[in-house]
Structures are given as structure tokens and as C-alpha cells.
């Protein structure tokens, strides 16, 4: 859209006189003066507070003249979504400036060459003539949930309690914190006291995760624990995209729509793809939280740079080295398998793997096998299904039947599930034992291997679960993953968090 520039106001072309010069909003202006007596729209405020929506998104919900009246009263301001300085474009919504991710074309709206961002186009087109709408009137006060704020009545394990105390202190003092918690530590419950405290102080809480399945898993659990609070789940295609809630659980992508919104920002699985690889998602986390917000990192496998920040003392850290059920993490067993690719190419299941699988099939232990890529996974699936009558399936990221197959595995309808690294996180199969085929492959990084090993022994009735890394040569990642898990078990033992340690005394 084009506007008439009547500084500090922008008059939309629909309301301009014919002889006025039309222009695009190309710079951020100082705020228009606020008319305190203006009868502003409460619903528009709750839509826009803490957000950065494109004008196109707002006009699907409100008529342009309502938006314009709020602008004239100083409650709404505009800024460009694409900033072009020295012909180098930058997207102010997703914060990227890679020239290959912009494109320009003659535009029927602004009658000029119009540049747009291809990176965040899935969330609506940010372009030279599409401004961002910002609320600059008084903020909506966050309401207080009714008591009891936290309706969860479970008990925390000792390590969970320690994490929980640290979290409450970090929120009180507005400091950052890394919670380094092993797989199966019970991360969600550790957050409850901290969130309860934040809500009691009318602070807005966000849990951000790179993965949609984590959002889907967390929303019902938090709704149940905080039954008098509003909880919104945001992911691509979710319903309550524009809702305003006390607790927001969002994929990192959806944070592109927020600005200075959250007092407490909890980033779950900071090391997971794509967040770890995508600088603009990291910036989205930065921009969506308030400047003085508490920033909490939560991970079983924080990456090297976060670990280093913790070591230097820049980022306070609490290590939760024991699982909720207080049994040690299963330590992976490395096993030489030779040239497994050649075996599979010759239509033979590598013998060590075959033995390992047969043993478990005969003892009716559910099996999860990680394979480094889809072609080998499919070949192995064929070989296995011709050599056993047990029910076997395979899943990968693009697989449309992925959800069903994972559910079948949960329901014990499958004896063996082959998977790519897609299932390295977030899944729990009771009593499962885990094999990694080709653990030396590059895709199996230290954190991937630690997460994979973390699939085993999660249930207190089956805390031991074997984990075997079948490899054709050791890698640094294999050794580091082993050391990592061993270190966590030692730490837990030292802190007296393990059951076996108690028995010994």
C-alpha cells in the first residue's frame, strides 16, 4: 500500500486526496503524539500488543479506517518490513539480509519495483510496500489467573527441585539460566514453579521450541497444570495464531510475529534443527522477548557455544544429571560392524546387527534402529521383512504416515521401527532398546547420539535398555557421546541423585 507522507502521520492512499503524492513507508518514524482520550479498541490492542504484524494481516481482521483512526490518535505506528539501505535489503520481520533470499518485481500495488523477503513468505509477504503495524498505545495489563495458579499435584524429584529453585530465582532476578537436563529428567515439570511465580507477577511467559511436535505435546500438559490461565499453542497452521495468552507455546518460526512481548522466554532444545542452524530464528527469539526479559535455555545437549558461555560464567548453569526415576542413563555400547553398506548392497543384513535384532525379537523387546539415510533404511527394511515375520516399519521426515507409525510403535503393534534421526528427540517407547547403524556417519553428531541413547530406559519399570552403536570406525562424536553420558552418570552419583548410590550406603 502507498501513503501520503504528512509527518508524523502516514495517510493511506484510500483516504488521500487525488493530488497528493503517494509514497511507500521507507523509514521508522518517531511516534505520533498520543491522544489519551481516544476510545481505542480493546480487541485491536490485544491483537497488536507485543506483536509485529504485516498491514495485510491486520486488514483481514479490521477495516483500514479503524486502523487509521488509531494511528491518528497515536496508538498505532508503522515501520517498513523491508528496509533497503545502499540497495542492500534487510527484512525487519525475520531479520535476514542474505541477498539471495530477496527478490524484486514490478508491483501493481505500489507501481514501483518492489522487493520482498522469500525467507518468511510462508507467514505472509513482507515487501517494500507492506508496512509492519505496531501498537504504541498503553499496553494491555495482563490479568491474574485465579488461585490456585498451579493445579499440578505431582512431586518433583530432587534434581527437578533443584532446577525449579534455580529457575524461580532467575525469573525473580531477571537473569539468564541454562538448564542442562539429561533426556528423561522431566523437563516440563521443572518449569512449573517458575511459570507459577511469573504468572503471579503478571509476567508473560513463552516457551519456544524449534519443533512443532513439542508444541503439540506441551500445550495439553500446560493447560492441565495451569487450568485458570490462558495457554496458546502456535505452529504453522495452528488455529489461535493471533490470540493473546498468559502462556504462549510457540515454534521459533511463529515468533516472527512478536516483538518485545515476553517477560520470560524459555527456549527448549536450543540445539535442535533448525534453530541451531538458523541465525534468523535466534534473532526472532531475541526480538520477541522484552529487553530485560529472563532468558532460559533448556537442553539435554547444549551446543559448544552455549557450553562455553556457561564455562566462562557468562551464563549461569544448573546441571540436572539424573533422570526422574533416579536410575543412571544407559551407557551406549560401541560395536564394530565392518563395511555395513557393502553388506546391505549385497542384500545381506550385517551379522552383528542381525544377531542383536534376533535376540530382541525372540525376547519380545521393542526395537528402534537408527539409520543414517533413507535409501539404506529402505533397503534394510526390505531385507528385514523378508527374513522375519515380525512387524516392521520405517519412518522419515517426509513420510506422510509418520504419526500413525510412531503411534503403532507406542501401542506395541510393531516389533521394530527403523528411523532416520527424525526420532532422535521427543519420543518415548516403553521398554525399547536402541541400535544405531553406521554410528560413524557424519549425521550422528555427539548431540544426536546422546539424544538417541536417551530414548532407552525412560520408563521406571524398564530403566536399563541396551543401546548399541554399530560402527565402521570410531569417530570423535561417538567418543564424546560416550564421555558425555558417563560424565552425567558420575555427576548424578556424586550428588546422591541415583537409587543405586543409595543402596550402596
Amino acid at each position, binding site marked *: 500500500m502507498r501513503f501520503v507522507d504528512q509527518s508524523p502521520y502516514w495517510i493511506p492512499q484510500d483516504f488521500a486526496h487525488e493530488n497528493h503524492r503517494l509514497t511507500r513507508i521507507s523509514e521508522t518514524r518517531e511516534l505520533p503524539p498520543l491522544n489519551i482520550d481516544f476510545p481505542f479498541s480493546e480487541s485491536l490492542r490485544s491483537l497488536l500488543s507485543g506483536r509485529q504484524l504485516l498491514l495485510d494481516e491486520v486488514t483481514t481482521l479490521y477495516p483500514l479506517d479503524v486502523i487509521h483512526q488509531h494511528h491518528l490518535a497515536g496508538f498505532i505506528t508503522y515501520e517498513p518490513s523491508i528496509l533497503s539501505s545502499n540497495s542492500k535489503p534487510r527484512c525487519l520481520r525475520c531479520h535476514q539480509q542474505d541477498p539471495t533470499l530477496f*527478490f524484486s518485481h*514490478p508491483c*501493481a500495488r505500489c507501481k514501483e519495483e518492489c522487493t*520482498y523477503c522469500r525467507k518468511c513468505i510462508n507467514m505472509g509477504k513482507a515487501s517494500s510496500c507492506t508496512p509492519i503495524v505496531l501498537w504504541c498505545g498503553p499496553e494491555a495489563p495482563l490479568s491474574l489467573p485465579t488461585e490456585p495458579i498451579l493445579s499440578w499435584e505431582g512431586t518433583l524429584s530432587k534434581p527437578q527441585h533443584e532446577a525449579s529453585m534455580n529457575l524461580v530465582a532467575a525469573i525473580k532476578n531477571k537473569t539468564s539460566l541454562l538448564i542442562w537436563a539429561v533426556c528423561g529428567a522431566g523437563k516440563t515439570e521443572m518449569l512449573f514453579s517458575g511459570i507459577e511465580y511469573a504468572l503471579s507477577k503478571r509476567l508473560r511467559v513463552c516457551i519456544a521450541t524449534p519443533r512443532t511436535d513439542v508444541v503439540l505435546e506441551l500445550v495439553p500438559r500446560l493447560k492441565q497444570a495451569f487450568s485458570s490461565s490462558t495457554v496458546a499453542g502456535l505452529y504453522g497452521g495452528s488455529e489461535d495464531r493471533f490470540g493473546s495468552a498468559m502462556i504462549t507455546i510457540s515454534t521459533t518460526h511463529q515468533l516472527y510475529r512478536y516483538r518485545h512481548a515476553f517477560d520470560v522466554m524459555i527456549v527448549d532444545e536450543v540445539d535442535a534443527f533448525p534453530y541451531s542452524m538458523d541465525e534468523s530464528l535466534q534473532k526472532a527469539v531475541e526480538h520477541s522477548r522484552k529487553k530485560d526479559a529472563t532468558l532460559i535455555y533448556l537442553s539435554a545437549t547444549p551446543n559448544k557455544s552455549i557450553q562455553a558461555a556457561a564455562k566462562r560464567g557468562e551464563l549461569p548453569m544448573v546441571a540436572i544429571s539424573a533422570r526422574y526415576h533416579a536410575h543412571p542413563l544407559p551407557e551406549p555400547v560401541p560395536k564394530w560392524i565392518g563395511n555395513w553398506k557393502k553388506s546391505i548392497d549385497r542384500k545381506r543384513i550385517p551379522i552383528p546387527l542381525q544377531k542383536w535384532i534376533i535376540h530382541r525379537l525372540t525376547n519380545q523387546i521393542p526395537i528402534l534402529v537408527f539409520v543414517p539415510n533413507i535409501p539404506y533404511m529402505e533397503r534394510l527394511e526390505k531385507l528385514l521383512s523378508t527374513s522375519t515375520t515380525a512387524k516392521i516399519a520405517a519412518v522419515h521426515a517426509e513420510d506422510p504416515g509418520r504419526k500413525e507409525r510412531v503411534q503403532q510403535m507406542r501401542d506395541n503393534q510393531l516389533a521394530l521401527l527403523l528411523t532416520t534421526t527424525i526420532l532422535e528427540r521427543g519420543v518415548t517407547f516403553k521398554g525399547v532398546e536402541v541400535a544405531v547403524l553406521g554410528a560413524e556417519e557424519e549425521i550422528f553428531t555427539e548431540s544426536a547420539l546422546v539424544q538417541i541413547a536417551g530414548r532407552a530406559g525412560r520408563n521406571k519399570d524398564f530403566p536399563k535398555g541396551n543401546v548399541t552403536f554399530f560402527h565402521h570406525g570410531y569417530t570423535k562424536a561417538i567418543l564424546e557421546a560416550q564421555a558425555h553420558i558417563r560424565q552425567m552418570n558420575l555427576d548424578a552419583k556424586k550428588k546422591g541423585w541415583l537409587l543405586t548410590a543409595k543402596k550402596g550406603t
Partner: protein
Amino acid sequence: MYHNVLDQNRSLYMYNEALKELIKRLKYQRDWKIASCFADEMNKMIREFPAYDLIVPIPLGNRRLHERGFNQTEALLYEANLPFTSLLARKDGEKQSKKSKKERIHTENPFSLVGKEELPGKKILLIDDLYTTGTTLRHAAYTLKNAEAKAVNSMTIGR
């Protein structure tokens, strides 16, 4: 009335899931760059076409054009470096993709002639993104033939 007004149509691709996804990105996400994917194939096919004098893109109605910010058919031609002449105007109607097949076939002709180009005796190549029932192209061809165009062929990306 619209029978035989279109001499022939050729399409680059059968309409399938992959093409559907690309066209969706181009038209509804408004990602102009997608149009460049088809540039080479369009040029190849157009070289094998019977001779023509003018390329005419199927236009959008004004409201739709403003919504989308560009006409996807012009974007396709623009990226393929194919010069074109905008001879047609179109009344805004219900979105084609929201109509049933029957509704599409029995709608009134939304096209009218703009442009001062002398049509009589000219051979026209119409361009559109998709050929579904052919009604849009036949309506456009009818309008052109009514103004004494000699031949009207068409090319679309998908069918």
C-alpha cells in the same frame, strides 16, 4: 457460441501435486520468483508453436490484481523474457478456483478489449497459468476473434 474459437492449446505439464504446490506459491503466497522456474520450458515450447504476431496474457480483474500485487501470467512472461501486449481487461468475479466445473462453463464472458492494437488479421498466442475447463481461454479467444483476430492459440503451464 464459444465452440471452436480457440484453435489449439498446448500445456507444459500435466497438473500434478508438485505443479499445484508451485502455482500455489506463485499465486497465493505471491512469490514472484517461482515464475522463473518455467522460463526455459516456456521458451522451448513457444519456438515450436505455429507462427503468431502477438503474445497476450490472460489478465486479472483490478481487485484481484491489487490483492496479489502482480498478474502471475505476466510474471511468467516477464521471467521468460517474452515480450507481450496487454489487449484484454477483465471484470472481477468469483475466484475461478472457488467455482465448480459447471459454474465455470456457464459464466458470462468477463473479458473486454483494451489496447489500440489493430487486431484484424493478427495471429494471437494467449498465455495463462492453468487450463482447467478451458472456459477462460475460450472466453478470451471469443473476445479476440470478435474483433477479427485471424487465429487464437493458447499455451498454459499446467493442464
